[in-house]
């Protein structure tokens, strides 16, 4: 009998070890505690996967020595029974988070050599809970973009391919050939790395949709928590009244586990909420019985693909089958959220990015005088999209235009938030919408002539940032081309728990997506 038990345990162990990168974060956590494998083995498996996946360009910096040193420490804690909540879990970190002594670039040439002498609160929280850092992830420059094409490190390749696509790895040094798909942005490296199983989860940030849109494009789960749930300290600022950190992971449960560790009060960020962090994982299995889910009619756009419409209807049916009541609701100012965002966000960006002037850190390009030095530094250090947004922001804040643009946009923001408050006051618990107006597109396909074409990607996500609310994107199916599509659930302020519960119902009903095989592996 004892021998049988051991044989079973051995088999379980060997199955668990063979595909360490295939595990969910929750499975890996449990396997570590049960000593099916070590933190070193788990980390090494991911370090190897990252090395073989360089063609995806998801990581801008690999930190294998640091990762293995952290994993070694985790193994000793597990051995002594002092494991912390994320002990030995290998993660990728978006390069917007400052990491002490590890170059943090925000995807920009202006910060290409910046080595912060401090740690962001979100990453500090993760390390304090025992997580392991695999490296820094590619992103759109200063988080401005929806495709990861604005990165100073070049675009990220999505692990997903359209059915019948000729995209393959095999060019010089294993480079990807063909018109590959974008992983979305700005957290494109985070989403691609999670979907390609290069890490068990990743940090990301969301100013207008930068967690949820790449999650939807890559068949992963991403949650933007309520504004103030995670500290912004040590995260390179884009638009301070909209920026929030959150996780991207492969399951709803994994996202819940990560968010619990990332979030929490912080005296270093005055906008960080002094609220206790709930046990989000405990909310995952709560179900949706008795919840009232709103379907906002304004999200039904002209020209939206049928597949998105059907997916949305199916999502409502799944929640209804789980015991929720589906209610049609109205958010009348929805269509104004995106244009108002393109005033508010650039205005805040132009102010936040004023610090990059070649004096205290980052690139310096000399000029004849100090003003010319500023101008040359910023001309050389910023990419096109960043320059565009800084200039728009400068314009809408300039004398004579402030009232017409900025003040009006902030008033409209009040109206957008009021729309949500009204329907929540009617007893709606969460709102269901599509996450994006389409599946992923190919590199170079959008925005080259007109920047607004790219901006339209965020039409369903941006309202949430404008109102400071939490929202989750959950994979819900594949389109005709075999690409993932996501649904978005929007919650009440500081009620992420309902989103995890409802997200889980969608995940179970949709069935977990089969992620692409590693066609990119060298």
């Amino acid at each position, binding site marked *: 009998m004892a021998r049988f038990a051991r044989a079973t345990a051995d088999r379980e162990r060997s199955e668990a070890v063979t595909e360490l990168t295939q595990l969910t974060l929750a499975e890996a956590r449990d396997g570590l505690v049960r000593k099916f494998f070590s933190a070193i083995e788990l980390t090494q498996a991911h370090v190897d996967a990252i090395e073989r996946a360089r063609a995806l360009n998801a990581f801008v910096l690999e930190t294998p020595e640091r990762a293995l040193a952290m994993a070694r420490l985790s193994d000793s804690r597990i051995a002594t029974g002092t494991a912390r909540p994320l002990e030995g879990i290998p993660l990728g970190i978006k390069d917007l988070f400052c990491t002490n002594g590890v170059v943090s670039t925000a995807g920009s040439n202006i910060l290409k*050599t*910046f*080595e*912060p*002498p401090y740690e962001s609160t979100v990453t500090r929280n993760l390390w304090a809970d025992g997580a392991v850092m695999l490296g820094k992830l590619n992103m759109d420059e200063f988080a401005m973009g929806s495709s990861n094409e604005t990165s100073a490190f070049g675009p990220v390749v999505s692990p997903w391919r359209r059915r019948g696509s000729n995209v393959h790895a095999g060019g010089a040094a294993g480079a990807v050939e063909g018109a590959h798909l974008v992983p979305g942005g700005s957290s494109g490296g985070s989403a691609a790395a999670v979907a390609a199983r290069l890490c068990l989860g990743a940090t990301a940030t969301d100013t207008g949709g930068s967690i949820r849109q790449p999650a939807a494009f890559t068949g992963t789960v991403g949650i933007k928590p309520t*504004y103030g749930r995670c500290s912004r300290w040590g995260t390179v600022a884009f638009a301070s*009244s*909209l920026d929030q950190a959150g996780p991207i992971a492969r399951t709803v449960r994994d996202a819940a586990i990560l968010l619990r560790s990332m979030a929490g009060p912080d005296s270093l960020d*005055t*906008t960080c*909420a002094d609220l206790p962090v709930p046990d989000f994982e405990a909310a995952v299995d709560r179900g949706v019985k008795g919840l009232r889910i709103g379907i906002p009619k304004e999200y039904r756009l002209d020209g939206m693909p049928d597949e998105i419409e059907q997916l949305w209807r199916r999502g409502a049916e799944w929640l209804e089958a789980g015991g929720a009541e589906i209610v049609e609701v109205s958010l009348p*100012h929805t269509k*104004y959220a995106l*244009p*108002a965002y*393109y*005033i508010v966000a650039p205005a805040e960006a132009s102010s936040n990015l*004023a610090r990059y*002037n*070649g*004096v*205290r*850190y*980052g*690139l*310096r390009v000399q*000029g004849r*005088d*100090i003003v*010319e*030095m*500023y*101008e040359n530094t*910023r*001309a050389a250090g*910023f990419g096109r999209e960043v*320059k*565009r947004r*800084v*200039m*728009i*922001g*400068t*314009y809408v804040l*300039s004398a004579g235009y402030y009232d017409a*643009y900025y003040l*009006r*946009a*902030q*008033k*409209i*923001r*009040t*109206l957008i938030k009021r729309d949500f408050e009204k329907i929540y006051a009617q007893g709606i618990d969460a709102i269901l919408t599509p996450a994006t107006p389409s599946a992923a597109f190919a590199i170079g396909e959008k925005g080259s002539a*007109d*920047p*607004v074409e790219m*901006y339209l990607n965020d039409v369903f996500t941006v309202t949430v940032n*404008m109102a*400071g609310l939490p929202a989750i994107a959950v994979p819900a199916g594949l389109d005709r081309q075999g690409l993932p599509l996501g649904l978005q659930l929007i919650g009440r302020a500081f009620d992420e728990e309902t989103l995890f519960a409802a997200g889980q119902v969608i995940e179970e009903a949709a069935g977990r997506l089969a992620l692409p095989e590693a066609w990119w592996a060298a």
Partner: protein
Amino acid sequence: MSVDQNTVRRIARLARIAVTDDDVPHLQGELNAILAFVEQLNEVDVEGVEPMTSVTPMVMKKRQDEVTDGGDAGLILRNAPSTEDDFFLVPKVVE
């Protein structure tokens, strides 16, 4: 509203971004595309609406006015392109 080429140069100057003559026409086109897109905000009646100042209701946190950090000149200067002693060095500002 739309911007002409002189305005593009003026905005670039205010934003402290050097632009070349070649940059100006495409920047003008892109900025005008964005300004045309935000034009629709003029349809909204904002009479009597308060502009948003804080997205979640919160009280400004306060703390005792005392020194809690500092003495790290070396760390602060570590990433600077040019320094001398404990100072950031910039081109001469005053003649």
